[in-house]
């Protein structure tokens, strides 16, 4: 029927688990991440059910604490951080630069095995009895007070960190060394600029997390005073180390989403991204300045007022490149020819939700307001607007956009649009009430809460029910299409990117002949004047 592609070259288990093909490794990651996403999602569902009433009725406090910890750890380290880089990134980086594979294919496979080892270790910690420290592992609670499986969970995260580092390293080398002839830096798709920025953070920040987790283990095992003041340590030292990694990690989680949105907005407006160089450098600016804002998590911790002043200022500065991106996406729509296919709906949802998340980030960067809002639901709402409203929405958008390339099949446009709209409304209903809860003063991580907060909690739980259904929908119609969908043409969106110039799904070696690039990216005019074929 069709020529052999990467999916049909071999069907044995061995050909999957020992593959060095970046496309197959992307699929391995994809399957693993769905698994982790549903574990994290199940915990979130239990949390929202419990919070529908002010009293404790579904679970005990100890179980509740384990639920939100598990939700955080799984979602941050085993879903959000690897989500776009390790699935879409793994699949697309070589295709977008006209290469045969990543620079280190075996390292890429090893990275997946390390990731799974870390994931299984963490799952073991959860099954053995759970962790109750919150995903932030704050000391001295995590080192000397918690009686849960802190060390096992921390070991899982520690191990998964090596996977992050290896992937980051692989992307950096690949983008530097394996670009097709004629593919200069300013001809790279902006998705790759953002993945490059992400990789730099992965390589530079993750080791700090590893060190921090080792220090926790040292204090727990050997009683060496590092973080506990009773044995001579300093609890705030932990927060500095932890956020030195974890704030940049926020940008690890959002930059790839921004990258995807560049591709989507450009394709469905049939126009190049407005202000290409500004958007490209904005990614690197975010990566660089993102290392200098960690102290904004500590405005009420007792750090010096001057330190707070500096970190607040830097936090406003880091918002500027994000604002630049939002303005450029909007300007890209101007005088475009806008198609509202499912990926574009996700992209538009991203812009709106990310902007709300970003603006409320400014609220929290604002020192005096942060004193009130930090550690309340305002913060919870804010970072879910960025992480879920932003990153997960972009992930779904990208998944739909490249689905025909990855599987060689077309999904049901009707169901895809329905899911996109449902996700948008479910998301807002879940998380917008949490801004109000936070402004009213409800602290986060509360198992039971005063009854006056119930109305907003019920709304939020109702939204979560819609959101849960909306997230399950793509499982069905995408899953169905992977086996029974119509065959996708090589270039269903009529897009100029290199990944669309090979067949769908691509052959194992990606390109029959080495592509040569002679043009700027996003040239949707002239040769690509035709409408998208399935619109």
């Amino acid at each position: 029927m069709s020529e052999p592609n990467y999916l049909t070259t071999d069907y044995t288990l061995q050909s999957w688990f020992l593959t060095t093909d970046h496309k197959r490794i992307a699929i391995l990651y994809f399957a693993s991440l769905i698994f982790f996403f549903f574990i994290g999602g199940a915990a979130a569902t239990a949390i929202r059910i419990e919070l529908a009433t002010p009293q404790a009725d579904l679970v005990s406090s100890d179980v509740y604490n384990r639920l939100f910890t598990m939700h955080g750890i799984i979602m941050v380290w085993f879903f959000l951080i690897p989500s776009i880089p390790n699935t879409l990134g793994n699949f697309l980086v070589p295709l977008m630069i006209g290469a045969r594979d990543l620079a280190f294919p075996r390292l890429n496979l090893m990275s997946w095995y390390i990731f799974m080892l870390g994931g299984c270790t963490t799952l073991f910690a959860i099954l053995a009895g759970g962790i109750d420290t919150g995903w932030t592992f704050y000391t001295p609670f995590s080192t000397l007070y918690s009686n849960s499986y802190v060390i096992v969970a921390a070991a899982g995260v520690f191990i998964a960190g090596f996977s992050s580092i290896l992937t980051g390293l692989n992307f950096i080398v690949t983008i530097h060394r394996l670009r097709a002839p004629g593919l200069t830096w300013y001809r790279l798709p902006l998705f790759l600029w953002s993945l490059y920025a992400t990789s730099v953070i992965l390589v530079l920040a993750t080791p700090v997390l590893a060190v921090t987790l080792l220090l926790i283990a040292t204090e727990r095992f050997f009683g060496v005073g590092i973080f506990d003041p009773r044995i001579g340590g300093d609890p705030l030292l932990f927060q500095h180390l932890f956020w030195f990694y974890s704030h940049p990690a926020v940008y690890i989680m959002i930059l790839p989403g921004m990258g995807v949105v560049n591709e989507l907005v450009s394709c469905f407006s049939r126009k190049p991204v407005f202000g290409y160089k500004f958007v490209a450098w904005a990614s690197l600016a975010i990566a660089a300045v993102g290392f200098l804002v960690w102290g904004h998590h500590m405005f009420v911790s007792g750090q010096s007022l001057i330190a707070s002043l500096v970190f607040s200022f830097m936090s406003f500065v880091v918002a500027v490149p994000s604002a630049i991106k939002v303005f450029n996406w909007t300007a890209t729509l101007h005088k475009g020819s806008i198609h509202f296919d499912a990926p574009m709906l996700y992209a538009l949802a991203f812009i709106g939700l990310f902007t709300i998340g970003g603006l409320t980030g400014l609220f929290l960067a604002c020192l005096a307001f942060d004193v009130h809002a930090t550690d309340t639901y305002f913060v919870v709402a804010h970072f879910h607007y960025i992480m879920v409203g932003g990153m997960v929405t972009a992930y779904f958008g990208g998944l739909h956009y490249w689905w025909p390339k990855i599987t060689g099949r077309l999904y049901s446009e009707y169901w895809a649009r329905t899911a996109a709209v449902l996700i948008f409304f479910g998301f807002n209903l879940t998380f917008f009430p949490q801004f109000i809860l936070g402004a009213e003063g409800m602290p986060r991580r509360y198992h039971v809460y005063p009854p006056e907060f119930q109305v907003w909690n019920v709304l939020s739980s109702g939204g979560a029910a819609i959101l849960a259904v909306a997230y399950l929908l793509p499982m069905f119609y995408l899953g169905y299409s992977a086996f029974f969908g119509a065959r996708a043409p090589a270039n269903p969106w009529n897009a100029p990117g290199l990944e669309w110039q090979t067949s769908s799904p691509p052959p194992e070696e990606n390109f029959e002949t080495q592509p040569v690039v002679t043009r700027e990216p996003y040239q949707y005019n002239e040769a690509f004047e035709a409408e998208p074929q399935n619109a």
Partner: protein
Amino acid sequence: MWREWIPFWRPGLSPQSSDVDLLFTGLLIASALVLGLLFFLLALFCVRYRAGNQIDRGHRTSKSWHWEVSWTVASFICFLGLFVWGASVYFEMYRTPTDELVVFVVAKQWMWKTQHPGGQSEIDALHVPLRRPVRLVMASQDVIHSFYIPALRLKHDVVPGRYQDLELEIDKPGSYHLFCAEYCGTDHSGMIGEIVAMEPADFSRWLTQQAPSSPLADEGGALFRQLGCSGCHGKGSKVRAPPLEGLYGKPVPLSDGSSVVADDKYIRDSILLPRSQIVASYEPLMPSFAGKLSEDQLLRLVVYVKSLAGNRS
């Protein structure tokens, strides 16, 4: 009052909380303007430039730098304004309290214990007089907690191993939530209490009605003798130890040539880590009391030493 017009936002009860509310309003208005503009443009472009709509798409802007520079500069200036505003209110909130009415707060898993200088102590509650700045001296017995009064828009972490000062002042009588805002283990959400603000006369009456107890300074003095501190620091001792009379609030010359003001933190540190700051011309003889004293006992000793400030030796 303008504050009544903001939904879900109860009026502030203290001078600083009104400032925070004003800031919040400012942030909301700024966000509404930005979001309004952005969503208007998104909607406008999506409708006008939808595929198939016959409309002039010529003369696209290709030179983008002046647009980029303008919106970059505009965002930066707005952000700078918000930064300065937020910072100035923050410095006002967290300014070093003057020595007004002092209340001691000890946080432990999972309760707040508050103690008035007269020895009256409360669990998960704090009574304060109206319109009078109250200085809280907070310590944690175990993990990090956070003292949070939403009605006052006021919060501060209570980190073990140090004293944390926080000033609060309430203008309106009533009872307000006190929450622990930093996750601290199993019963974190049960670590809540209430702040009761009373007219000064009612407050004085309330104080006298509490269970009779001796002032913290007296209890500290008893502890001081019981732990043997008086053996060296007491009058007529044979061991040469720095005198504590008249010490509090004064600069202390240290053996490394620097000097430090003898505040609560210095006294606390000197009990727990006596060798870290040696008073000039004294031998480092004192044993550490780390791990031997609870925060409750420590603060009594601190209050006792403080009470000696007036007695010149």
